């Protein structure tokens, strides 16, 4: 792991599980949007993969468009 992949000290505590929080409370305190997870859990794994693939396609399309737009 290089230096760019080190965590700020204030975030290191989130590795711990003895903080009295539930897993969902800990994730929310870290800043994770749990509604996204709840949405995903309504999908099948196959549908989740389709969404991921569609997002990658979109990101590539946007990247290409940005490259064409740049002088």
């Amino acid at each position: 792991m290089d230096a760019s992949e080190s965590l700020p000290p204030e975030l290191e505590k989130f590795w711990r599980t003895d903080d009295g929080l539930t897993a969902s409370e800990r994730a929310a305190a870290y800043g994770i949007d749990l509604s996204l997870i709840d949405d995903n859990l309504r999908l099948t794994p196959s549908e989740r993969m389709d969404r991921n693939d569609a997002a990658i396609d979109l990101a590539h399309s946007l990247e290409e468009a940005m490259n064409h737009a740049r002088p």
Partner: protein
Amino acid sequence: MQGLKDLLCRLHSGKVEFVLAGGFGVMAHGSALMTQDVDVACRMDPDNLLRLFEALESLRPVHRMTPQRLPFTRGQAEQGGLKNLCLSTDWGQLDCLGEIKGIGGYAECFARSEALDLDGCEIRVLTLDALIEAKRAMGRPRDLHAVLELEAIRERLRG
């Protein structure tokens, strides 16, 4: 356009022995984290690598980490002796790993995996518990995010 899910089904059709791990496995369990590559724990013996090569041959696999992006060849597969393969294909990036940190090699990964049905294509994926252990063992900031999501998912599934 074909994507990473199709890549996994291609491996399955080619009878490649693998277990889905990494970020794509995390996402398959319900995480909202997106990923651009697929990590699989793979048997790295010549027989399995040859099946891997034949499954990917038409997708123009190249070694992603080499500056010249050299092709992955039948000869390399037959020779064996590879620990990991980081490939780029026409359908996306695929990392075949001989070992998953925190879990072990292919056999240990298979023992900690479960079936995953992808529209009739049944593959193996590391269990939620195994993925949490693997991500904790990796210990990078992005792994922490994945761990927190996976632990929240586990809690929600247990009700």
